[in-house]
């Protein structure tokens, strides 16, 4: 299928938060993304600070999630493939990968505890699933939509990771969202900056996302864009109220001018 438009693109950054820099700890956030034909695949994970190998857990989870989806997309069976199921399959692949690694290395599965956000987009439609916190926000016709949001409990430091025994009942599968122009996937380190929290829940914050999505749409060079995004996440403004690791992945979809 020949497309006459610019391809969709994805870029992002994970940075080590000030607290982990101070304590000489590795970045426990990880992200991985890839464009496969007309599909975009994004996985973002936040390893839990209280366990010893969460940096490995988050890294393995994002890589397993993206590569499992890529394998499915590159080898679509004759009887077809329901792509709306892919984000959930990405979570399952990540969990399986962590289980296997735990057995191979004689680790406890929970020592690699991590959250995971899995996103697939096809043209202008976004599918997402997540376990733990972080969020997926899209721009649709100039409006911001929270596709999938933090699933954390009442308290700021309690969440269900993918390594939990209850992960399957605590995960969330978002409804597909169409005619989207851009999407942002981020960990909780960006949450206080990006989401307004009210009695009714979370809402994407326009004064955060409007500049961020404009930046994403105007980026011409993805390497330079990623560099700028890293600097932004490390900036005083973003880290003032969150000492945590931060990940922000941005994608510009092949949107309305795709016809």
């Amino acid at each position: 299928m020949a497309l006459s438009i610019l391809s969709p693109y994805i870029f992002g950054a994970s940075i080590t938060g000030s607290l982990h820099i101070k304590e000489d700890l590795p970045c426990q956030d990880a992200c991985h993304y890839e464009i496969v034909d007309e599909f975009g695949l994004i996985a973002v994970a936040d390893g839990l600070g209280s366990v010893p190998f969460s940096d490995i857990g988050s890294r393995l989870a994002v890589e397993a999630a993206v590569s499992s989806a890529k394998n499915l997309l590159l080898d679509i069976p004759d009887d077809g493939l329901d792509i709306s199921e892919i984000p959930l399959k990405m979570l399952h692949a990540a969990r399986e990968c962590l289980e296997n690694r735990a057995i191979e290395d004689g680790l406890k599965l929970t020592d690699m505890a991590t959250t995971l956000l899995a996103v697939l987009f096809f043209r202008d439609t976004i599918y997402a699933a997540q376990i733990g916190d972080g969020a997926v926000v899209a721009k649709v016709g100039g409006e911001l939509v929270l596709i999938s949001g933090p699933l954390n409990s009442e308290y700021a430091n309690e969440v269900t990771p993918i390594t939990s025994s209850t992960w399957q009942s605590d995960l969330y599968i978002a409804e597909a969202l169409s005619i989207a122009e851009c999407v942002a996937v981020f960990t909780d380190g960006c949450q206080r900056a990006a989401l307004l929290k009210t009695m009714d829940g979370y809402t994407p914050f326009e004064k955060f996302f409007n500049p961020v999505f404009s930046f994403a749409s105007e980026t011409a060079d993805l390497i330079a864009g990623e560099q700028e995004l890293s600097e932004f996440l490390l900036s005083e403004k973003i880290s003032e109220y969150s000492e945590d690791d931060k990940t922000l992945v941005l994608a510009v979809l092949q949107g309305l001018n795709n016809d």
Partner: protein
Amino acid sequence: MSILNEVEIANPQHPHCATMLLLDTSGSMEGDKIRQLNEGLNFFKEDIMQDDLARKRVDLAIITFGEGVNVVQNFASVENTPEMNLAADGLTPMGYALNTAMDLIEQRKNEYKTKGVDYYRPWIFMITDGEPTDMKPGDPMWESVVSRIHEGESSKKFLFFAVGVEPANMQTLKDLSPQSRPPLKLKKDRFREMFSWLSKSTKKTSASKVGDTVPLDNPTGPEGWGEVETG
């Protein structure tokens, strides 16, 4: 100049870590115990103040019970905590004090929710050398206080810690405490070590991020300040 410079922050406030100190200032605390309690409290404040993150995040409330129940400080930044010079006098209205503590926690959490502030699970840290004089096992007040503590702990409304100072009635404290967290008995003259542990634990909690279960130092080790009474 990058357009990213135009970004504004949705929720420019630190998550809050509410810590409730519930202190027995009854007559029997007089002498060395109240002196060490005051010193420990002042040390706790200074120690929190020296930690950049904890200073901004810890919300401290102090209630005393002795000559009445007195809210010395409702939840506020440690910076606002006055120099402590508590005096020991009166009985031990622990039941009323516990209810007041749990009321203030509910109130504070509602304020957090209204303002969209993220918060950690509040702590109630009670220190006593006696037993309640305003309730006793089996009476309605006792039943309601105990069930409120146990329900609050199991539904994750707060974490309840009780510390007994000689000659506290440890059995009473055990009945009040959630099963999962039996009361600790303070070793003689270890007030400062106890507050140091509390400060360290509070600092750890206030620096924890989403997902963390904060591992606390064991206060009952050979070098610790407390011991668990068995039998």
